[in-house]
């Protein structure tokens, strides 16, 4: 309970989740840049780690992040068929699908772990997606941290 309180912003009394985002260098990272260039407003509760391809995100990172108390983990990659490395995102899709089911089965809401396709030109989609996903995590509330 102590941790939960810590992470509630005193000013707004709103829960600020801790969210990890992996973004593919070629598409969604560029989209995040574009969102910036277009000065779109995005909630600040996430941190992006840039990877060359969404397929670099090993599922163990996600599991690790949850074990370290993150409230959500998102992976953003290129649309199917648009992978810079031709097929990386297809592997990602499979890995994510399976891991989501496994997490859910083990008592971690699968909504906390999301995959989205955002291409380099979709700055607005990046902003909208992040807003919606973060909202989703807020609705779920803080994760019960295992001790």
């Amino acid at each position: 309970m102590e941790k939960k309180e810590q992470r509630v912003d005193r000013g707004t009394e709103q829960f600020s989740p801790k969210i990890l985002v992996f973004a593919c260098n070629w598409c969604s990272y560029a989209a995040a840049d574009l969102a910036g260039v277009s000065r779109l407003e995005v909630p600040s509760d996430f941190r992006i780690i840039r990877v060359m391809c969404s397929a670099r995100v090993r599922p163990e990172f996600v599991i690790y992040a949850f074990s370290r108390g993150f409230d959500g983990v998102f992976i953003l990659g290129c649309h199917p068929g648009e992978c810079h490395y031709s097929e990386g995102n297809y592997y990602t899709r499979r890995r994510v699908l399976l891991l989501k089911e496994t997490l859910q089965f083990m008592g971690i809401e699968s909504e906390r772990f999301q995959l989205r396709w955002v291409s380099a030109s979709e700055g607005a989609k990046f902003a909208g997606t992040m807003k919606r996903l973060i909202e989703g995590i807020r609705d779920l509330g803080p994760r019960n941290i295992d001790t």
Partner: protein
Amino acid sequence: MIKVMLQKKLQDRVKELLQNGTVSLFIGYEQGPGFVYVSPCFVRDESGAERLVLNQFCSNNLAGYIHEYNAYNRRIGICVKGCDARALVELVKQNQITREDLFVVGVPCTGRIDISKLREEYGPKLEEIKGISETERSFLLETVRGTKEIYKEKIVFDKCLSCTHPEGFEYDILLDELKIPEFGSADPVQKRVEEMESLSTAEKNEVWCSYLSQCILCRACQKACYACYCPECIFDKAYPRWFSKISTTAQKRLYHLIRAYHLAGRCVDCGECERACPAGIPLRLLNKKIEKETKKLFNNREAGINQEGVLPLNTFDIDDPDFFL
């Protein structure tokens, strides 16, 4: 009686194989501390073949030992039940050994006895059991107090109730025809998976927390697994340190999630993990769930059934489901 004949047949064949140099090592079972306790044995010369036993208590998946001996022995002989051959199929597919380096002796099986179930049925004094034979539906235990009949269904492993063998696997020798034993009831694990699925996330979490509270992170489940063959385990790495080995629920959950995930598409459901677990955690549950999902999502067959094909996470289909997006 049939069993004793098969055991003799096995000993003779192994003797021959070692004698003529077909294999340099044979992995089988030997008597442990008491009739019902059977342990793996590694026979290197013909005299050792006498030690081999074969009965309804021989449950270990011996494929798990191949990896340890593979580097030093050319052509390893091994005796496997139909279900264990699935592990061999996988080891070959995962490039851990070539089929030519194996000499596979197929042994018939009518279901293996789960000691913990036996203990419940029979009582704690298992040392009283001195011999075993069987009928169509029952095992006949020869004990110091005479013969006791127990329905097979009551004491075989859960997995035996839904026995599966690989398709088209060629054994080098078959001691007898390998039949898939049939029982009146099915493996209850599927149902347990469904029950678990029907729970809310919070309830699932609660169930797992209670399981995990039992876990002592001894990692026996991992050591018993045929698929644990990496030179250095990700859990043992110091840099980076994935796993701090501190007994917290978070660490235990991480351990079990990663372990299950690493087995995705590789778990042959031999049940060794569950058998090895000193805390009695139903580990097959998680493996079965993943198996079920790979089947549903990627149309992937259970591991070790087909001799062809790629692990489900090492391939993809352009039309894989994306409903979750």
